[in-house]
């Protein structure tokens, strides 16, 4: 075993890479099972018919999504197929408008606009946009904002008008509701709870 022989390190490079790749493949198989819609961490798309909250779990020592009882979205109960179609539409909207190049999803994307992981649960909808828009529900306020953000500004850095129609805006809102129910190992932390600096 001559460590000055390139062949020794070549063998090391090949075997190390191979072992790591095999481990990654196994972990991938398991992870894909967990993250499919309906898997352990990611709910089925018809979770949009349920109430979603985000609460601290003392056994896991992190915030986790909690799926509650029935909660209509846009006054409607969606079938599995309708929910799936809505999600597909929502994701297409998000991609076609390049939302990820201003916002983040699960913290991934661009940092010019807020993270949208728990946007569905954000208190600002009830506190600010529902009064501003006059909407009776959170989802209606969200749709009104998305369709005409210029009418409801709250900040000098405004959301641009990306010409979403009503169907598209509703699909995005539904998508955000589904996303808020994904178990993200506690990201973002302390959502909605402010802490003292100490």
């Amino acid at each position, binding site marked *: 075993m001559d*460590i*000055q022989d390139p062949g020794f390190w070549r063998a090391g490079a090949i075997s190390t890479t191979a072992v790591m790749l095999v481990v990654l493949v196994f972990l991938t198989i398991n992870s894909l099972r967990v993250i499919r819609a309906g898997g352990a961490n990611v709910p089925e798309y018809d979770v949009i018919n349920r109430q979603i909250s985000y609460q601290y779990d003392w056994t896991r020592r992190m915030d986790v999504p909690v799926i509650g009882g029935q909660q209509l979205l846009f006054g409607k109960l969606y079938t599995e197929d309708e929910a799936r179609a809505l999600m597909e539409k929502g994701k297409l909207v998000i991609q076609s408008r390049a939302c990820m190049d201003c916002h983040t999803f699960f913290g991934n994307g661009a940092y010019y606009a807020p993270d949208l992981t728990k946007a569905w649960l954000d208190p600002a909808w009830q506190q600010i946009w529902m009064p501003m828009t006059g909407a009776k529900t959170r989802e209606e306020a969200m749709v009104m904002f998305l369709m005409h953000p210029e009418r409801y500004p709250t900040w000098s850095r405004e959301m641009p008008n990306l010409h979403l129609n009503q169907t598209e805006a509703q699909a995005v809102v539904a998508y955000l509701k589904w996303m808020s129910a994904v178990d993200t190992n506690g990201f973002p932390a302390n959502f909605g709870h402010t*802490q003292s*600096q*100490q």
Partner: protein
Amino acid sequence: MTPYALIYTAVLLGLFVLAGGGYGGFYSVGRLWSNTVLIRAGVACYLVAILLALAICLFTPLAALWKVVIVLSVLIYAAIPPVTWRYLAKLHRTPEESK
């Protein structure tokens, strides 16, 4: 983790690796120029890395397993510059084949 703990933990972690880098850099240049002052500066950086590792273990709220990783890292850091240097010297001393 409190907000302040977040900041000082992250800064300690960054400084820890930087100290390791200082050790590698000063030690290598010191060996290159046969300059004992620089080699000692490198060792001093390594001592700083040890102190930083200690601080991380004692004062940060990281879980025990991560502190073990830090301790193992600081042990490995000790070896990287001298072992790498010795190995490169040996490699260069062996008769070189033409390109």
